[in-house]
Protein backbone atom coordinates (compact mmCIF):
# COMPACT_ATOMS: atom_id res chain seq x y z
CA UNK A 1 0.00 0.00 0.00
CA UNK A 2 2.71 2.39 1.02
CA UNK A 3 4.45 1.43 -2.16
CA UNK A 4 1.53 2.55 -4.33
CA UNK A 5 0.98 5.81 -2.47
CA UNK A 6 4.65 6.63 -2.89
CA UNK A 7 4.47 5.93 -6.58
CA UNK A 8 1.43 8.15 -7.03
CA UNK A 9 3.09 11.03 -5.19
CA UNK A 10 6.09 10.64 -7.44
CA UNK A 11 3.82 10.83 -10.44
CA UNK A 12 2.14 14.02 -9.28
CA UNK A 13 5.44 15.69 -8.56
CA UNK A 14 6.69 14.63 -11.94
CA UNK A 15 3.72 16.21 -13.68
CA UNK A 16 4.23 19.49 -11.85
CA UNK A 17 7.88 19.44 -12.70
CA UNK A 18 7.25 18.79 -16.35
CA UNK A 19 4.68 21.55 -16.60
CA UNK A 20 7.03 24.07 -15.02
CA UNK A 21 9.89 23.09 -17.26
CA UNK A 22 7.81 23.17 -20.39
CA UNK A 23 6.43 26.56 -19.44
CA UNK A 24 9.90 27.86 -18.79
CA UNK A 25 11.44 26.54 -21.97
CA UNK A 26 8.61 27.68 -24.16
CA UNK A 27 8.50 31.16 -22.83
CA UNK A 28 12.23 31.59 -22.51
CA UNK A 29 12.82 30.52 -26.08
CA UNK A 30 13.07 33.56 -28.27
CA UNK A 31 9.99 34.62 -30.14
CA UNK A 32 6.29 34.33 -29.56
CA UNK A 33 3.05 33.96 -31.44
CA UNK A 34 2.86 37.55 -32.38
CA UNK A 35 6.25 37.79 -33.99
CA UNK A 36 4.86 37.03 -37.40
CA UNK A 37 2.26 39.66 -36.96
CA UNK A 38 4.88 42.16 -35.93
CA UNK A 39 6.77 41.53 -39.10
CA UNK A 40 3.73 42.28 -41.13
CA UNK A 41 3.94 45.99 -41.97
CA UNK A 42 0.22 46.25 -42.42
CA UNK A 43 -0.55 45.65 -38.80
CA UNK A 44 0.16 48.53 -36.50
CA UNK A 45 2.51 47.90 -33.59
CA UNK A 46 -0.11 49.19 -31.23
CA UNK A 47 -2.48 46.44 -32.31
CA UNK A 48 0.14 43.86 -31.61
CA UNK A 49 0.88 45.37 -28.26
CA UNK A 50 -2.77 45.46 -27.33
CA UNK A 51 -3.21 41.86 -28.42
CA UNK A 52 -0.29 40.92 -26.27
CA UNK A 53 -1.81 42.61 -23.29
CA UNK A 54 -5.09 40.97 -24.04
CA UNK A 55 -3.47 37.58 -23.97
CA UNK A 56 -1.49 38.62 -20.92
CA UNK A 57 1.83 37.84 -22.48
CA UNK A 58 3.35 40.86 -20.82
CA UNK A 59 2.79 39.68 -17.29
CA UNK A 60 5.66 38.17 -15.28
CA UNK A 61 6.33 34.45 -15.55
CA UNK A 62 5.13 33.19 -12.15
CA UNK A 63 1.87 35.07 -12.55
CA UNK A 64 1.25 33.52 -15.92
CA UNK A 65 2.06 30.09 -14.54
CA UNK A 66 -0.33 30.58 -11.68
CA UNK A 67 -3.08 31.69 -14.00
CA UNK A 68 -2.41 28.73 -16.21
CA UNK A 69 -2.67 26.34 -13.28
CA UNK A 70 -5.95 27.92 -12.40
CA UNK A 71 -7.14 27.41 -15.92
CA UNK A 72 -6.11 23.76 -15.78
CA UNK A 73 -8.21 23.34 -12.69
CA UNK A 74 -11.18 24.58 -14.68
CA UNK A 75 -10.47 22.17 -17.51
CA UNK A 76 -9.53 24.87 -19.97
CA UNK A 77 -5.76 24.52 -19.85
CA UNK A 78 -5.01 27.94 -21.20
CA UNK A 79 -5.97 29.61 -24.43
CA UNK A 80 -4.94 28.87 -27.98
CA UNK A 81 -4.00 31.98 -30.01
CA UNK A 82 -4.31 30.25 -33.32
CA UNK A 83 -7.67 28.64 -32.80
CA UNK A 84 -8.97 31.37 -30.59
CA UNK A 85 -10.46 28.90 -28.13
CA UNK A 86 -9.58 27.23 -24.85
CA UNK A 87 -6.95 24.55 -25.20
CA UNK A 88 -8.72 21.86 -23.19
CA UNK A 89 -11.57 20.99 -25.53
CA UNK A 90 -9.26 21.32 -28.51
CA UNK A 91 -6.88 18.75 -27.13
CA UNK A 92 -9.68 16.49 -26.18
CA UNK A 93 -11.10 16.18 -29.67
CA UNK A 94 -7.72 15.59 -31.22
CA UNK A 95 -6.62 13.17 -28.53
CA UNK A 96 -9.72 11.10 -29.15
CA UNK A 97 -8.79 10.70 -32.76
CA UNK A 98 -5.26 9.79 -31.91
CA UNK A 99 -6.33 7.25 -29.33
CA UNK A 100 -8.62 5.63 -31.84
CA UNK A 101 -5.64 5.00 -34.00
CA UNK A 102 -3.10 4.06 -31.39
CA UNK A 103 -5.33 1.84 -29.27
CA UNK A 104 -6.26 -0.19 -32.31
CA UNK A 105 -2.66 -0.38 -33.44
CA UNK A 106 -1.33 -1.33 -30.00
CA UNK A 107 -3.91 -4.05 -29.51
CA UNK A 108 -3.23 -5.45 -32.93
CA UNK A 109 0.53 -5.29 -32.51
CA UNK A 110 0.48 -7.13 -29.22
CA UNK A 111 -2.03 -9.67 -30.47
CA UNK A 112 0.36 -10.50 -33.29
CA UNK A 113 3.60 -10.17 -31.35
CA UNK A 114 2.75 -12.69 -28.65
CA UNK A 115 2.10 -15.73 -30.81
CA UNK A 116 4.88 -14.80 -33.23
CA UNK A 117 7.37 -14.29 -30.43
CA UNK A 118 6.40 -17.51 -28.72
CA UNK A 119 6.60 -19.43 -31.97
CA UNK A 120 10.01 -17.97 -32.60
CA UNK A 121 11.27 -18.87 -29.14
CA UNK A 122 9.84 -22.38 -29.34
CA UNK A 123 11.70 -23.05 -32.58
CA UNK A 124 14.86 -21.31 -31.50
CA UNK A 125 17.63 -21.56 -34.07
CA UNK A 126 15.49 -23.37 -36.60
CA UNK A 127 13.90 -22.09 -39.78
CA UNK A 128 10.79 -20.30 -38.44
CA UNK A 129 12.88 -18.48 -35.88
CA UNK A 130 15.56 -17.48 -38.34
CA UNK A 131 13.01 -16.30 -40.91
CA UNK A 132 11.20 -14.21 -38.32
CA UNK A 133 14.41 -12.74 -36.99
CA UNK A 134 15.47 -11.75 -40.47
CA UNK A 135 12.09 -10.16 -41.17
CA UNK A 136 11.98 -8.22 -37.92
CA UNK A 137 15.53 -7.02 -38.38
CA UNK A 138 14.68 -5.71 -41.84
CA UNK A 139 11.51 -4.00 -40.67
CA UNK A 140 13.32 -2.39 -37.78
CA UNK A 141 15.74 -0.77 -40.13
CA UNK A 142 13.04 0.87 -42.25
CA UNK A 143 12.35 4.37 -40.90
CA UNK A 144 8.74 5.12 -39.98
CA UNK A 145 8.66 7.98 -42.44
CA UNK A 146 9.60 5.81 -45.36
CA UNK A 147 7.02 3.27 -44.29
CA UNK A 148 4.23 5.80 -44.06
CA UNK A 149 5.11 7.40 -47.37
CA UNK A 150 5.40 4.02 -48.98
CA UNK A 151 1.92 3.08 -47.87
CA UNK A 152 0.58 6.39 -49.11
CA UNK A 153 2.09 5.86 -52.51
CA UNK A 154 0.53 2.43 -52.64
CA UNK A 155 -2.81 3.95 -51.72
CA UNK A 156 -2.56 6.57 -54.43
CA UNK A 157 -1.51 4.06 -57.07
CA UNK A 158 -4.03 1.39 -56.26
CA UNK A 159 -6.90 3.51 -55.16
CA UNK A 160 -7.90 0.87 -52.61
CA UNK A 161 -7.54 3.15 -49.64
CA UNK A 162 -8.17 6.82 -49.09
CA UNK A 163 -5.05 8.85 -49.11
CA UNK A 164 -5.37 10.75 -45.92
CA UNK A 165 -7.73 12.35 -43.52
CA UNK A 166 -10.15 10.69 -41.21
CA UNK A 167 -13.41 11.06 -42.99
CA UNK A 168 -14.53 11.49 -46.51
CA UNK A 169 -16.31 14.49 -47.88
CA UNK A 170 -19.99 14.18 -47.15
CA UNK A 171 -19.40 12.17 -44.03
CA UNK A 172 -22.25 13.73 -42.18
CA UNK A 173 -24.80 12.45 -44.62
CA UNK A 174 -23.82 8.81 -44.26
CA UNK A 175 -25.76 6.23 -42.31
CA UNK A 176 -24.19 5.15 -38.99
CA UNK A 177 -22.94 1.89 -40.44
CA UNK A 178 -21.40 3.62 -43.42
CA UNK A 179 -19.89 6.20 -41.13
CA UNK A 180 -18.10 3.40 -39.31
CA UNK A 181 -16.93 1.85 -42.54
CA UNK A 182 -15.70 5.18 -43.73
CA UNK A 183 -13.63 5.77 -40.65
CA UNK A 184 -12.37 2.20 -40.80
CA UNK A 185 -11.08 2.54 -44.34
CA UNK A 186 -9.40 5.77 -43.49
CA UNK A 187 -7.87 4.20 -40.41
CA UNK A 188 -6.43 1.19 -42.16
CA UNK A 189 -3.27 2.67 -43.56
CA UNK A 190 -2.21 4.61 -40.47
CA UNK A 191 -2.87 1.57 -38.30
CA UNK A 192 -0.89 -0.66 -40.64
CA UNK A 193 1.98 1.80 -40.53
CA UNK A 194 1.92 1.93 -36.75
CA UNK A 195 1.68 -1.82 -36.38
CA UNK A 196 4.53 -2.47 -38.77
CA UNK A 197 6.74 -0.01 -36.95
CA UNK A 198 5.95 -1.39 -33.48
CA UNK A 199 5.77 -5.12 -34.26
CA UNK A 200 9.44 -6.00 -34.82
CA UNK A 201 10.62 -4.72 -31.47
CA UNK A 202 7.74 -6.40 -29.65
CA UNK A 203 8.34 -9.72 -31.34
CA UNK A 204 12.01 -9.64 -30.46
CA UNK A 205 11.28 -8.84 -26.83
CA UNK A 206 8.69 -11.59 -26.53
CA UNK A 207 11.07 -14.02 -28.15
CA UNK A 208 13.91 -13.10 -25.81
CA UNK A 209 11.77 -13.25 -22.69
CA UNK A 210 10.22 -16.61 -23.58
CA UNK A 211 13.47 -18.16 -24.78
CA UNK A 212 15.08 -17.40 -21.45
CA UNK A 213 12.31 -19.15 -19.61
CA UNK A 214 12.19 -22.22 -21.86
CA UNK A 215 15.44 -23.48 -20.35
CA UNK A 216 14.18 -23.25 -16.81
CA UNK A 217 13.96 -26.40 -14.64
CA UNK A 218 10.29 -25.91 -13.87
CA UNK A 219 9.48 -26.16 -17.54
CA UNK A 220 11.33 -29.45 -17.80
CA UNK A 221 9.49 -30.61 -14.72
CA UNK A 222 6.18 -29.65 -16.30
CA UNK A 223 7.12 -31.52 -19.47
CA UNK A 224 7.83 -34.46 -17.21
CA UNK A 225 4.24 -34.26 -16.01
CA UNK A 226 2.98 -34.66 -19.52
CA UNK A 227 1.61 -31.15 -19.91
CA UNK A 228 0.91 -30.67 -23.62
CA UNK A 229 3.31 -28.42 -25.53
CA UNK A 230 0.84 -25.67 -26.33
CA UNK A 231 -0.23 -25.26 -22.75
CA UNK A 232 3.38 -25.32 -21.66
CA UNK A 233 4.16 -22.42 -23.93
CA UNK A 234 1.20 -20.21 -23.15
CA UNK A 235 0.30 -21.05 -19.59
CA UNK A 236 3.73 -21.81 -18.15
CA UNK A 237 6.38 -20.10 -20.24
CA UNK A 238 4.51 -16.90 -21.03
CA UNK A 239 3.47 -16.44 -17.42
CA UNK A 240 6.99 -16.84 -16.22
CA UNK A 241 8.28 -14.50 -18.92
CA UNK A 242 5.64 -11.89 -18.10
CA UNK A 243 7.74 -9.49 -16.06
CA UNK A 244 9.79 -7.83 -18.78
CA UNK A 245 6.79 -7.93 -21.09
CA UNK A 246 4.58 -6.10 -18.62
CA UNK A 247 7.19 -3.36 -18.38
CA UNK A 248 7.15 -3.19 -22.14
CA UNK A 249 3.37 -2.95 -22.10
CA UNK A 250 3.68 0.01 -19.78
CA UNK A 251 5.89 1.66 -22.33
CA UNK A 252 3.45 0.85 -25.12
CA UNK A 253 0.64 2.44 -23.14
CA UNK A 254 2.82 5.35 -22.28
CA UNK A 255 3.35 6.27 -25.90
CA UNK A 256 -0.30 6.04 -26.85
CA UNK A 257 -0.64 9.74 -27.56
CA UNK A 258 2.89 10.57 -28.53
CA UNK A 259 3.99 7.64 -30.67
CA UNK A 260 1.88 8.35 -33.73
CA UNK A 261 2.92 11.91 -34.47
CA UNK A 262 4.81 11.13 -37.64
CA UNK A 263 2.22 8.87 -39.14
CA UNK A 264 -0.57 11.30 -38.38
CA UNK A 265 1.22 14.18 -40.00
CA UNK A 266 2.10 12.23 -43.12
CA UNK A 267 -1.34 10.75 -43.49
CA UNK A 268 -3.21 13.87 -42.45
CA UNK A 269 -4.98 12.15 -39.66
CA UNK A 270 -6.57 14.86 -37.49
CA UNK A 271 -4.97 13.79 -34.27
CA UNK A 272 -2.76 15.28 -31.63
CA UNK A 273 0.33 15.08 -33.82
CA UNK A 274 -0.48 17.66 -36.46
CA UNK A 275 -1.96 19.95 -33.83
CA UNK A 276 1.19 19.87 -31.79
CA UNK A 277 3.41 20.35 -34.80
CA UNK A 278 1.48 23.40 -35.94
CA UNK A 279 1.45 24.83 -32.46
CA UNK A 280 5.20 24.46 -32.07
CA UNK A 281 5.86 26.11 -35.39
CA UNK A 282 3.46 28.95 -34.65
CA UNK A 283 4.54 29.36 -31.05
CA UNK A 284 1.04 28.70 -29.83
CA UNK A 285 2.29 28.49 -26.29
CA UNK A 286 -0.52 26.96 -24.32
CA UNK A 287 -1.31 24.32 -26.88
CA UNK A 288 2.27 23.14 -26.77
CA UNK A 289 2.27 22.99 -23.00
CA UNK A 290 -1.07 21.23 -22.99
CA UNK A 291 0.11 18.65 -25.48
CA UNK A 292 3.32 17.93 -23.66
CA UNK A 293 1.47 17.59 -20.40
CA UNK A 294 -0.99 15.15 -21.89
CA UNK A 295 1.82 13.02 -23.23
CA UNK A 296 3.48 13.04 -19.84
CA UNK A 297 0.29 12.01 -18.12
CA UNK A 298 0.01 9.04 -20.43
CA UNK A 299 3.66 8.12 -20.01
CA UNK A 300 3.54 8.28 -16.24
CA UNK A 301 0.17 6.60 -16.18
CA UNK A 302 1.37 3.83 -18.46
CA UNK A 303 4.31 3.07 -16.24
CA UNK A 304 2.18 3.20 -13.15
CA UNK A 305 -0.28 0.79 -14.69
CA UNK A 306 2.60 -1.50 -15.56
CA UNK A 307 3.74 -1.43 -11.95
CA UNK A 308 0.26 -2.33 -10.78
CA UNK A 309 0.09 -5.16 -13.28
CA UNK A 310 3.47 -6.39 -12.12
CA UNK A 311 2.28 -6.45 -8.53
CA UNK A 312 -0.71 -8.45 -9.59
CA UNK A 313 1.16 -10.85 -11.83
CA UNK A 314 4.21 -11.66 -9.73
CA UNK A 315 3.58 -12.69 -6.13
CA UNK A 316 7.26 -12.40 -5.30
CA UNK A 317 7.15 -8.66 -5.97
CA UNK A 318 4.07 -8.41 -3.80
CA UNK A 319 5.98 -9.92 -0.92
CA UNK A 320 8.93 -7.60 -1.47
CA UNK A 321 6.75 -4.52 -1.73
CA UNK A 322 4.91 -5.48 1.42
CA UNK A 323 8.14 -5.90 3.32
CA UNK A 324 9.23 -2.35 2.62
Amino acid at each position, binding site marked *: *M*RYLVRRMLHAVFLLFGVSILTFLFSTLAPGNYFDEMRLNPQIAPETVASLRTQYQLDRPLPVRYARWLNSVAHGQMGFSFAYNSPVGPLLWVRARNTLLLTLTATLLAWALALPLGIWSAASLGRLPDRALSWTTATLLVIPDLVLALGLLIMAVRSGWFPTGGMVSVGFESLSPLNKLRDIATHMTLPVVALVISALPMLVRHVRAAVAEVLDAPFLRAATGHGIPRRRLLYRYALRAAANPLISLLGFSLGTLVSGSLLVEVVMSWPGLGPLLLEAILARDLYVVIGGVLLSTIFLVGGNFLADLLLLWADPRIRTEA*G*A*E
Partner: protein
Amino acid sequence: MQALLNVENLMKRYVTGEFFAARESIAALDGVSLSIQTATTLALVGESGSGKSTLALCVACLERPTSGSIWFDGRDVAALGEKQQRAVRPQIQLVFQDPANSLNSRLTALEIVAEPLIIQRRFDKQARSKRACALLERVGISAKKAGSRPDEFSGGQRQRLAIARALALEPKLLILDEALSALDCSVQAQIANLLLELQSSLGLTYLFITHDFAMAAHLADEIAVMDHGRIVELGAAEKLLRSPEHEATRCLLAATPRFRGTANLPAGL
Protein backbone atom coordinates in the same frame (compact mmCIF):
# COMPACT_ATOMS: atom_id res chain seq x y z
CA MET B 1 44.82 -24.43 28.12
CA GLN B 2 42.81 -21.33 27.53
CA ALA B 3 39.95 -21.54 25.11
CA LEU B 4 40.61 -19.89 21.74
CA LEU B 5 36.97 -18.95 21.34
CA ASN B 6 34.58 -18.20 24.15
CA VAL B 7 31.07 -17.11 23.29
CA GLU B 8 29.04 -15.75 26.18
CA ASN B 9 25.30 -15.30 26.13
CA LEU B 10 25.12 -14.22 22.53
CA MET B 11 21.83 -12.76 21.35
CA LYS B 12 20.83 -11.77 17.82
CA ARG B 13 17.40 -10.46 17.03
CA TYR B 14 16.01 -9.67 13.61
CA VAL B 15 13.07 -7.34 13.19
CA THR B 16 10.56 -8.09 10.47
CA GLY B 17 7.13 -6.93 9.56
CA GLU B 18 5.23 -4.64 7.24
CA PHE B 19 4.36 -1.04 7.76
CA PHE B 20 0.85 -1.58 8.95
CA ALA B 21 1.39 -4.97 10.54
CA ALA B 22 2.82 -5.40 13.99
CA ARG B 23 6.57 -5.58 13.97
CA GLU B 24 7.87 -8.96 14.91
CA SER B 25 11.17 -9.62 16.50
CA ILE B 26 12.73 -12.97 15.81
CA ALA B 27 15.50 -14.21 18.03
CA ALA B 28 17.91 -16.05 15.77
CA LEU B 29 20.28 -16.48 18.69
CA ASP B 30 18.77 -16.60 22.14
CA GLY B 31 21.60 -16.64 24.64
CA VAL B 32 24.24 -18.89 23.13
CA SER B 33 27.33 -19.78 25.13
CA LEU B 34 30.09 -22.12 24.07
CA SER B 35 33.85 -22.40 24.05
CA ILE B 36 36.39 -24.10 21.82
CA GLN B 37 39.88 -25.06 22.95
CA THR B 38 42.78 -24.41 20.65
CA ALA B 39 43.46 -27.10 18.05
CA THR B 40 40.19 -28.90 18.75
CA THR B 41 36.95 -29.22 16.85
CA LEU B 42 33.52 -28.26 18.09
CA ALA B 43 30.64 -29.49 15.96
CA LEU B 44 27.46 -27.44 15.94
CA VAL B 45 24.53 -29.62 15.01
CA GLY B 46 20.94 -28.59 14.44
CA GLU B 47 18.09 -28.30 12.02
CA SER B 48 17.85 -25.45 9.55
CA GLY B 49 16.53 -22.38 11.28
CA SER B 50 18.16 -23.32 14.57
CA GLY B 51 20.58 -20.41 14.28
CA LYS B 52 23.78 -22.23 13.31
CA SER B 53 24.60 -19.99 10.36
CA THR B 54 23.77 -16.84 12.31
CA LEU B 55 26.22 -17.93 14.97
CA ALA B 56 28.86 -18.54 12.32
CA LEU B 57 28.36 -15.06 10.87
CA CYS B 58 28.56 -13.43 14.28
CA VAL B 59 31.73 -15.25 15.25
CA ALA B 60 33.31 -14.37 11.91
CA CYS B 61 32.49 -10.71 12.58
CA LEU B 62 30.25 -10.49 9.54
CA GLU B 63 27.17 -9.73 11.63
CA ARG B 64 26.91 -7.75 14.83
CA PRO B 65 25.15 -9.54 17.66
CA THR B 66 22.42 -7.69 19.52
CA SER B 67 24.12 -8.44 22.82
CA GLY B 68 26.64 -10.78 24.41
CA SER B 69 30.36 -11.19 23.95
CA ILE B 70 32.64 -13.18 21.71
CA TRP B 71 36.04 -13.67 23.29
CA PHE B 72 38.57 -14.58 20.65
CA ASP B 73 42.16 -14.98 21.67
CA GLY B 74 41.56 -12.90 24.76
CA ARG B 75 39.64 -10.02 23.12
CA ASP B 76 35.93 -9.34 22.88
CA VAL B 77 35.55 -9.00 19.13
CA ALA B 78 31.84 -8.23 19.35
CA ALA B 79 32.68 -5.01 21.12
CA LEU B 80 35.36 -3.86 18.72
CA GLY B 81 34.95 -1.05 16.26
CA GLU B 82 34.86 -1.61 12.51
CA LYS B 83 38.52 -0.94 11.96
CA GLN B 84 39.70 -3.16 14.77
CA GLN B 85 37.39 -5.93 13.64
CA ARG B 86 38.99 -5.81 10.24
CA ALA B 87 42.28 -6.58 11.89
CA VAL B 88 40.82 -9.62 13.61
CA ARG B 89 38.91 -11.07 10.65
CA PRO B 90 41.90 -12.69 8.95
CA GLN B 91 42.26 -14.91 11.97
CA ILE B 92 38.74 -16.28 11.64
CA GLN B 93 37.92 -17.68 8.21
CA LEU B 94 34.78 -19.22 6.74
CA VAL B 95 34.25 -22.08 4.35
CA PHE B 96 30.73 -22.26 2.94
CA GLN B 97 28.53 -25.05 1.74
CA ASP B 98 28.29 -24.20 -1.89
CA PRO B 99 31.66 -23.62 -3.48
CA ALA B 100 30.04 -22.78 -6.78
CA ASN B 101 28.62 -19.62 -5.29
CA SER B 102 31.41 -18.61 -2.98
CA LEU B 103 34.20 -18.82 -5.54
CA ASN B 104 34.61 -16.14 -8.17
CA SER B 105 34.07 -18.01 -11.40
CA ARG B 106 36.08 -15.52 -13.39
CA LEU B 107 39.32 -16.02 -11.52
CA THR B 108 41.74 -18.90 -11.85
CA ALA B 109 42.47 -21.15 -8.89
CA LEU B 110 45.73 -19.39 -8.22
CA GLU B 111 44.10 -15.97 -8.29
CA ILE B 112 41.36 -17.10 -5.95
CA VAL B 113 43.84 -18.26 -3.35
CA ALA B 114 46.05 -15.19 -3.76
CA GLU B 115 43.14 -12.75 -3.50
CA PRO B 116 43.03 -12.53 0.31
CA LEU B 117 46.74 -11.82 0.30
CA ILE B 118 46.24 -9.02 -2.19
CA ILE B 119 43.41 -7.51 -0.19
CA GLN B 120 45.36 -7.61 3.02
CA ARG B 121 48.42 -6.30 1.19
CA ARG B 122 50.78 -8.96 2.28
CA PHE B 123 53.94 -9.92 0.43
CA ASP B 124 54.95 -8.91 -3.01
CA LYS B 125 53.62 -10.45 -6.18
CA GLN B 126 56.16 -13.22 -6.50
CA ALA B 127 55.95 -14.28 -2.88
CA ARG B 128 52.17 -14.30 -3.13
CA SER B 129 52.30 -16.57 -6.16
CA LYS B 130 54.62 -18.92 -4.36
CA ARG B 131 52.48 -19.06 -1.27
CA ALA B 132 49.34 -19.60 -3.32
CA CYS B 133 50.96 -22.51 -5.18
CA ALA B 134 52.13 -24.01 -1.93
CA LEU B 135 48.61 -23.76 -0.49
CA LEU B 136 47.10 -25.45 -3.52
CA GLU B 137 49.56 -28.32 -3.14
CA ARG B 138 48.74 -28.55 0.52
CA VAL B 139 45.07 -29.12 -0.16
CA GLY B 140 45.75 -31.61 -2.90
CA ILE B 141 45.26 -29.56 -6.06
CA SER B 142 48.11 -30.17 -8.45
CA ALA B 143 50.07 -27.25 -9.85
CA LYS B 144 48.85 -28.16 -13.34
CA LYS B 145 45.36 -27.08 -12.39
CA ALA B 146 46.40 -23.78 -10.87
CA GLY B 147 45.38 -21.94 -14.00
CA SER B 148 41.92 -23.49 -14.29
CA ARG B 149 38.68 -21.77 -13.39
CA PRO B 150 36.29 -23.10 -10.74
CA ASP B 151 33.82 -24.54 -13.22
CA GLU B 152 36.52 -26.85 -14.52
CA PHE B 153 36.83 -28.47 -11.11
CA SER B 154 34.70 -31.13 -9.51
CA GLY B 155 32.67 -30.38 -6.38
CA GLY B 156 35.30 -31.84 -4.08
CA GLN B 157 38.12 -29.95 -5.75
CA ARG B 158 36.19 -26.71 -5.48
CA GLN B 159 35.80 -27.24 -1.80
CA ARG B 160 39.54 -27.89 -1.51
CA LEU B 161 40.04 -24.59 -3.29
CA ALA B 162 37.77 -22.84 -0.82
CA ILE B 163 39.78 -24.33 2.04
CA ALA B 164 43.04 -23.21 0.44
CA ARG B 165 41.68 -19.70 0.16
CA ALA B 166 40.61 -19.77 3.78
CA LEU B 167 44.11 -20.82 4.81
CA ALA B 168 45.81 -18.04 2.86
CA LEU B 169 45.78 -15.63 5.78
CA GLU B 170 46.94 -18.24 8.29
CA PRO B 171 43.83 -18.16 10.45
CA LYS B 172 43.57 -19.61 13.89
CA LEU B 173 39.91 -20.53 13.66
CA LEU B 174 38.18 -22.04 10.66
CA ILE B 175 34.39 -22.02 10.57
CA LEU B 176 33.03 -24.69 8.23
CA ASP B 177 29.37 -23.95 7.54
CA GLU B 178 27.92 -27.16 6.10
CA ALA B 179 31.12 -27.40 4.11
CA LEU B 180 30.69 -31.11 3.37
CA SER B 181 26.94 -31.29 2.99
CA ALA B 182 26.77 -30.79 -0.75
CA LEU B 183 29.43 -33.39 -1.57
CA ASP B 184 29.24 -37.05 -2.50
CA CYS B 185 29.96 -39.54 0.26
CA SER B 186 33.38 -40.59 -0.95
CA VAL B 187 34.40 -36.99 -1.51
CA GLN B 188 33.17 -36.06 1.95
CA ALA B 189 35.53 -38.63 3.37
CA GLN B 190 38.45 -37.20 1.40
CA ILE B 191 37.79 -33.64 2.53
CA ALA B 192 37.24 -34.78 6.10
CA ASN B 193 40.63 -36.46 6.01
CA LEU B 194 42.18 -33.29 4.64
CA LEU B 195 40.66 -31.26 7.45
CA LEU B 196 41.97 -33.67 10.05
CA GLU B 197 45.42 -33.63 8.53
CA LEU B 198 45.49 -29.83 8.40
CA GLN B 199 44.37 -29.63 11.99
CA SER B 200 47.13 -31.87 13.26
CA SER B 201 49.86 -30.19 11.22
CA LEU B 202 48.79 -26.53 11.49
CA GLY B 203 47.11 -26.62 14.89
CA LEU B 204 43.87 -25.23 13.47
CA THR B 205 40.71 -24.89 15.51
CA TYR B 206 37.47 -25.83 13.82
CA LEU B 207 33.88 -24.81 14.34
CA PHE B 208 32.17 -27.45 12.25
CA ILE B 209 28.55 -26.68 11.49
CA THR B 210 26.45 -29.47 10.08
CA HIS B 211 23.22 -31.36 10.35
CA ASP B 212 24.98 -34.68 9.74
CA PHE B 213 25.43 -36.23 13.14
CA ALA B 214 27.61 -39.05 11.87
CA MET B 215 30.23 -36.75 10.38
CA ALA B 216 30.04 -34.49 13.43
CA ALA B 217 30.65 -37.42 15.74
CA HIS B 218 33.58 -38.50 13.64
CA LEU B 219 35.36 -35.17 13.37
CA ALA B 220 34.58 -33.40 16.62
CA ASP B 221 35.89 -33.50 20.13
CA GLU B 222 32.74 -31.89 21.42
CA ILE B 223 29.26 -31.54 19.99
CA ALA B 224 26.83 -28.72 20.69
CA VAL B 225 23.21 -29.23 19.68
CA MET B 226 21.27 -26.12 18.71
CA ASP B 227 17.54 -25.69 18.66
CA HIS B 228 15.61 -22.46 18.14
CA GLY B 229 18.59 -20.24 18.82
CA ARG B 230 19.76 -21.98 21.96
CA ILE B 231 22.30 -24.61 22.77
CA VAL B 232 20.28 -27.38 24.28
CA GLU B 233 23.00 -29.95 24.82
CA LEU B 234 26.76 -29.78 24.89
CA GLY B 235 29.26 -32.50 25.54
CA ALA B 236 31.79 -34.99 24.30
CA ALA B 237 30.80 -36.88 21.18
CA GLU B 238 30.71 -40.30 22.83
CA LYS B 239 28.51 -39.13 25.62
CA LEU B 240 25.95 -37.54 23.32
CA LEU B 241 25.74 -40.66 21.21
CA ARG B 242 25.49 -43.01 24.12
CA SER B 243 23.01 -41.10 26.21
CA PRO B 244 21.44 -38.07 24.56
CA GLU B 245 19.50 -36.03 27.05
CA HIS B 246 17.60 -33.41 25.14
CA GLU B 247 14.65 -34.10 22.86
CA ALA B 248 16.26 -32.24 19.96
CA THR B 249 19.38 -34.40 20.18
CA ARG B 250 17.34 -37.55 20.20
CA CYS B 251 15.35 -36.39 17.20
CA LEU B 252 18.48 -35.58 15.24
CA LEU B 253 20.07 -38.90 16.10
CA ALA B 254 16.95 -40.77 15.11
CA ALA B 255 16.79 -38.90 11.81
CA THR B 256 20.38 -39.56 10.82
CA PRO B 257 20.39 -42.13 8.03
CA ARG B 258 22.25 -45.18 9.11
CA PHE B 259 22.66 -48.70 7.94
CA ARG B 260 24.23 -51.78 9.34
CA GLY B 261 27.23 -52.55 7.33
CA THR B 262 30.49 -50.92 8.02
CA ALA B 263 30.76 -52.80 11.29
CA ASN B 264 30.99 -56.03 9.36
CA LEU B 265 33.56 -54.89 6.87
CA PRO B 266 37.17 -55.62 7.58
CA ALA B 267 39.03 -52.45 8.42
CA GLY B 268 41.25 -51.52 5.54
CA LEU B 269 41.36 -53.38 2.25
